[in-house]
């Protein structure tokens, strides 16, 4: 079995993620990508390399294409009719994820996602977390129990919900729901977690909790986070990409983007003068 092709349909079972790669290695290579919604072009020639086990932040004014790019990474845009990557490639571990041989289902297991608005299923907390595992045919009770505890601990939620695992996930507070969604995403042990404005619907205290969580998760996962909150990007991320009107304007270490931006537009945006 070719370990280098983890998403192709031919690779049955879970080939272990390559952990030998040094931190800082390129995990996702976005190579000159143009993306269209029907006739309108949303992304122009995006060229970006996302490093493994780092937090990469996407910032930029509303409508600049952050979510679009993020959703390209696990092919969620496939669900929208008429979308296409017209040019360029997105490679994860060197594999073009838009190649016809790629198994989208396998890809999405490896690239998890947390949405802007928390969206737990109308099921119990326990079932929310085991959903992804059951899809993979895992049904051993003690196995599932272990994963539930591990994921909830990983999402810093275990102590708050351990006594009510079998109550509805919709009964949690907004911040708890979002952490439940994070726990649900990490339960299937993805390599990458995409987060689209995960804190925008949360109050400051819940936001702090999620940010702390991101700091913990970065040791195990590669995280890409879209945010409108400059401080959040500055606090949480290692690298920051600034987009404007569907173009990548600047991509550098977070510190550099905020302290010493190379581009005048970037400078204007991070200093709050437009956007």
């Amino acid at each position, binding site marked *: 079995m070719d370990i280098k092709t983890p998403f192709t349909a031919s690779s049955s079972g879970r080939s272990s993620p390559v952990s030998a790669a040094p931190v800082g290695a390129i995990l996702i290579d976005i190579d000159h990508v143009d993306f269209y919604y029907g006739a309108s072009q949303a992304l122009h020639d995006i060229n970006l390399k996302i490093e493994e086990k780092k937090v990469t932040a996407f910032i930029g004014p509303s409508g600049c294409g952050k979510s679009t790019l993020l959703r390209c990474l696990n092919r969620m845009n496939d669900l929208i009719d008429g979308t296409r990557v017209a040019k360029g490639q997105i490679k994860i571990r060197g594999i073009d994820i838009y190649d016809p041989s790629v198994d989208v289902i396998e890809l999405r*297991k490896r690239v*998890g*996602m947390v949405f802007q608005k928390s*969206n*737990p299923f109308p*099921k119990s907390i326990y079932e929310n977390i085991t*959903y992804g595992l059951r899809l993979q045919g895992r049904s051993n009770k003690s196995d599932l129990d272990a994963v539930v505890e591990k994921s909830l601990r990983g999402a810093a939620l275990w102590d708050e919900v351990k006594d009510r695992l079998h109550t509805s996930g*919709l009964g949690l507070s907004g911040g708890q729901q979002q952490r439940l969604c994070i726990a649900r995403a990490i339960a299937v042990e993805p390599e990458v977690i995409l987060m689209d404005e995960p804190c925008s619907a949360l109050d400051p205290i819940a936001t702090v909790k999620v940010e702390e969580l991101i700091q913990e998760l970065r040791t195990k996962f590669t995280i890409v986070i879209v945010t409108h909150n400059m401080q959040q990007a500055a606090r949480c991320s290692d690298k920051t990409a600034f987009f404007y009107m569907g173009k990548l304007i600047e991509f550098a270490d977070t510190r550099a983007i905020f302290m010493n931006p190379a581009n005048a537009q970037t400078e204007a945006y991070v200093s709050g003068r437009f956007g």
Partner: protein
Amino acid sequence: MDSPRPAPASDFLVNKKRVRVLGLSFDDAVKIFFGGNAFVSVLVLALITYFLFQEGFGFFGQNHRNLLTYRQAGLEYVDYIRTQESAHTALTRYLSDLRLRQFSHATLEKKLTPAAANESLVAFDNFAALYGDSVEPLRGLVSELTEQATAIKTKFLVAEDKAVERQQLTAEGKIAEAAAVQIETVDFAVEVKALTGTLPAYKELAAEFIKKLDAALLTAPAMPTAELTTRLERFRQLSSDFTATFPATTRSLETWDYTRAVPWYQAFSAFLFGREWLTASFWQDWYGIVPLFMGSLMVSLVALLLAVPMGVGAAIYVNQIASAAEQRFIKPCIEFISAIPSVVLGFFGIAVLGQLLRWLSQQDALAWVPGFPFSERLNILTAGCLLALIAVPTIFTLAEDALQNVPKAFKEASFALGATRLQTIIKIVVPASLSGIISAVLLGLGRVIGETMVVLLCAGNRIAIPDFTAGLAVVTQPVHTMTGIIAQEMGEVVRGSIHYRALFVVGLGLFFLSLAINFLAQKIVNKYRISIG
């Protein structure tokens, strides 16, 4: 407002002159219009309910009198004996069936010609004739008693009519005419003696009857196969079960008392649990709703069995899988079905579907299907198929709504976790909309139960409880329904008669059934709204 205001800026505070008609502003008129509409609907509903109750409730009093007459005039007494006669008739039918089986065994297995086969069955025929004829004396007694009881009943009813006539005349002040009305008083104590007096004769006759049956059984020839032998054994068993009921019947006859009161609840229970709906009969009318209810239920069940997978399946396909172009095509098509007048559907059922189903059932290749072949063109299945067509648009539209209401975020979350489209539908979308789907099904059921034209035309209109011992083949039997009976008989009944009132009570039952179904559906939908949050 009365002091002149210099500042034009605060003009908007001044109450502008509005057009008023009869002292009402436009807003008031709108309010009254909508309020009036709402009020009229409530009023109409109240009137309908009142009317149904008013017309319907008289039924139970009349039914009580009906049952009382049944007892007093001795019809009940006669029916004890008649039951024996019909039980015997059922046994002779069993014998005919046995003969048919022997005949086909002889012609098919032994390759005899029909004539030769009949020849070989002479011994059996003699036995069957002996067994069948033994009932004759009993039958004679029954018909004699029937005549007498009918005479008593008629006499009583005539006397009652006369009494009513006299009452009316008196009320109109025509005292002389009222006095002229001859009322023949019926003394049941005397009249009934003519019936009960036959008891010793009956006892003798019954003893003779049992002897004859047992004697006939001894002449039964041996059966050609093991299977048929067990059938004959079964027949012997049935026959001895039959004769074992005789002492009980005799006891009923001995203890029968025309003065025993008919308890009030029987007016209700005879309706609710009565297994016979028999009207305009020379003997005794029965108003039991069970056969009609079972008919409605069976037809509706068959309809739902077909319509639920179709309607829900189509809704899932259109909402979750189909392309936009397919949606644009399928949706109006299904919704158009509900525009077909039900009488047209019924006509189609008679002319095409019933014919087609019967033809299909008679194909040899389909003989394995339970109930096939069948000979009744109009039956539960035919009506159920057409009713399904009526329920599908309701179920489809409401189920599609329910699916549409599932937040997109659930689906996205599911896909993002690596679920296929099918897994997402089965594990997320359908469970999240389940209560909506269930209430769609319930409302479809309500639609089906209330449907009249199709069942009237296609259900076969035989008033009988379906024979469930036939297993699945029960759906090939004709039935009559609650809606159908009202539509069919309402035109012919005398206003105010017990039959007329009985039909109203059936209508009342339908009304409450629909009410209950709608209520349940509403309840479920409300619960569903809360759970989605």
